């Protein structure tokens, strides 16, 4: 019977990835068929390229320690939004004055543009994200260590 054949395939967990991948592939095709989508122009945290800025493409304008304009969903929930954006550590300030091409490096410093969204307005995301990393790390370390002790 066809049902028995299907259940034989489904009951083997070696087959779940192929089945799931097939579903994903079908879904990709369906998504392609639904194209094009309308891109909403009214986006949060819009990005503008300031030509000639040393902080390109992360320049948001504004001198250090002054609040910069940020389009966030609920501005009333993050009163300090924009402070971090406008702040550069002395070292990053130095770097930004030296060269045009260090924008991406500056992002890695505390005080980079990206950090604003990461730490403040979407902070819960980044709490979950290190948690995922922490759990994955714990799994790997536990299994690795158990093998070591054997």
């Amino acid at each position, binding site marked *: 019977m066809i049902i028995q054949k299907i259940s034989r395939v489904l009951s083997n967990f070696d087959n779940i990835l192929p089945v799931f991948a097939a579903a994903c592939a079908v879904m990709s095709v369906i998504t392609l068929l639904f194209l094009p989508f309308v891109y909403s122009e009214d986006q949060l945290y819009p990005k503008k390229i300031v030509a000639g800025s040393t902080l390109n493409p992360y320049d948001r304008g504004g001198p250090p320690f002054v609040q910069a304009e940020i389009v966030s969903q609920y501005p009333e929930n993050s009163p300090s939004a924009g402070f971090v954006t406008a702040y550069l550590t002395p070292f990053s300030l130095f770097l930004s004055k030296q060269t045009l091409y260090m924008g991406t490096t500056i992002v890695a410093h505390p005080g980079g543009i990206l950090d604003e969204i990461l730490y403040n307005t979407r902070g819960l995301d980044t709490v979950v994200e290190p948690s995922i990393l922490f759990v994955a790390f*714990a799994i790997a370390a536990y299994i690795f260590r158990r093998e070591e002790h054997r």
Partner: protein
Amino acid sequence: MNEIGGTPLFFLEFGDIVVYFTPFTLTLFILALIFTVFVLVSRPERQIDIAFGGDAFYDKVISLSELRFRRFMSIACGLACMGAMVTGDVFDFTLFVSLVGICNVGIVAAVKSRHVQNAAYQYGLVALAGTVPLFSAAAMVAATTGTLSMLELAKNAVEIPLAARALLVLGVMGEGMAPFYAAKAEMFRAPGAPYVIMCSLSSLLIFLRVAEVILLL
């Protein structure tokens, strides 16, 4: 907003991510909490097999470190579940769901048997593949509507592509796959009932929540 899970009782703001409790999400949250407390306080059961042809019995022994690790994973899983139940942000929800996925893999992977490890690996692969539709869906919601907040999306100002919703469901199915193949794995024969329950509880909870999210959007 259309009231799928009831009127929100209260909000908790974390910047742009607003956590809200409706009667529906609160029910699920409390259940996740109850079972997490069970995991925390209950001791695993012991299994006894009677030897054939006599009254003697074998007692299955599992190392303490394994049980501790699985308890840790189950608690992490419970916390992730609670987060996924109440978060009001689509991307945050997908992140919590992938945390649930990796915790499920962790609960299974700790069992020391080649067969179980094999199962855990396959679940892990599906969970990893599941992040693709999951994150794609969230990103498509953000791009087509300009927001990720469920409260804003529930106002139905802009239509979300059907494909994005379907991708979200597919992703959650991938992350919550593990328990449904569990019967094949030896993991259920290893002691540690509270931990295994967390595995299936989390899957069911995220399914329930994604049903609400889909109806809400």
